């Protein structure tokens, strides 16, 4: 009975991943004017005008994004539970996958607080200061990529060690995750550009980078739920 209850919690935690992604896209992205962001070379007055004209939307967007940020970490813990069944409870890979997800929460919480600061009293702030907070938040959220890469690499390496005939977690998805963690390196060039493909709003550094991550979250969730069902059935069969 106790085990069955645990699997229920695993499933609940796994659903936190897609929930995080949905909240993030709508509240942080849409309401916060971050999906896509202002191109870095637009005048400060444009950014400031948006924050002054839509202060309440941005506030709501960031408040919700901050409230739901821990869902990403909770989701990461559900993945780590499945990973434990592949590499063992004491494996450092499980710990790294867990901590990578937990740290990712911080990389969302801190920049969202900067956007929230810009929206808190935008009428009293000069244009350049609002622009600076907006830039600062973007530089942090993009350049913190390596934290999430830790989670992706640990999960990838761990799940690839699965010796089962049909692995608990598909190998192609492990490789895809490793590739995404690796592709994030492109964020390193983002601070050097204010327009074009490599700017924070560009085809590579925004559209591709966010898309490959946001597609990964629900895909991983689907397979974690599937693996959980399988482990539950194996336990029931004794």
């Amino acid at each position, binding site marked *: 009975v106790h085990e069955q209850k645990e699997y229920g919690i695993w499933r609940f935690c796994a659903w936190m991943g897609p929930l995080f992604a949905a909240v993030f896209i709508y509240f942080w992205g849409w309401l916060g004017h971050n999906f896509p962001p202002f191109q870095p070379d637009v005048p400060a007055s444009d950014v400031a005008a948006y924050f002054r004209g839509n202060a309440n939307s941005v506030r709501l967007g960031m408040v919700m994004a901050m409230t739901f940020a821990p869902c990403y970490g909770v989701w990461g813990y559900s993945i780590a539970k499945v990973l434990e069944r592949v590499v063992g409870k004491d494996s450092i890979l499980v710990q790294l996958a867990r901590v990578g997800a937990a740290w990712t929460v911080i990389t969302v919480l801190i920049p969202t607080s900067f956007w929230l600061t810009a929206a808190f009293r935008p009428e009293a702030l000069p244009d350049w200061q609002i622009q600076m907070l907006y830039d600062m938040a973007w530089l942090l959220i993009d350049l913190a990529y390596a934290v999430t890469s830790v989670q992706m690499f640990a999960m990838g390496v761990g799940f690839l060690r699965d010796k089962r005939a049909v692995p608990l977690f598909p*190998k192609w998805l492990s*490789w*895809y995750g490793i590739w995404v963690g690796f592709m994030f*390196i492109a964020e390193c060039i983002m601070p050097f550009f204010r327009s074009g493909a490599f700017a924070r709003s560009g085809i*590579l550094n925004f559209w*591709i980078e966010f898309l490959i991550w946001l597609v990964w979250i629900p895909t991983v969730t689907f397979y974690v739920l599937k693996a959980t069902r399988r482990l539950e059935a194996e336990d029931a069969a004794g």
Partner: protein
Amino acid sequence: VTQAAVKAARLPGDPGVWIFIIADCCAFALFFLLFTIGRIGNPDLYERSRLLLDPTTGLLNTLILLTSSWFMVRAVEGARAGERSAVTRNLALSMAVGAGFGVSKIFEYSHKIGLGITMLTNEFFTYYFIFTGIHFLHFLIGLAVLAVCLAKARQDPLDARYVTWIEASGCYWHMVDLLWIMLFPMLYLLRAV
């Protein structure tokens, strides 16, 4: 489909590695598209910038990578035949020749930077430095992967598991070639119409 056909159609290495390779090739395909769009918009700038690159170095790099890949093929064949000395010898040669690409690229980058040309000089050089830079990173990872293959070849049994390992590494190493074979003509050779 007969069993023989299934066997013949088998992908070398772990099928999962191919996801990495395909995803990576898609990313580079996007890079090539970006470059092409930029070039259509400003052919003069691209032509003037291209002439600042040395095609001989580019060709040398191509030959280095192809030679290194040839040794890699021989190492894979050695592993399939279970000949440990052929595997270690060819892997070491593949790495030694391949390392020449790194040396040549470092010279090329320092020369450009010495002339005051960086990734911020113009759009052509932005693409040049970023695309070849990301490719260089792939190359470094490839060298590390080959080093792991070599270490494993020295101590592990050359069983089916090892063959999968070395095949997958070989596929990755050939991808590093393939991407360079696309980058070289696009950056160094493609003339303005």
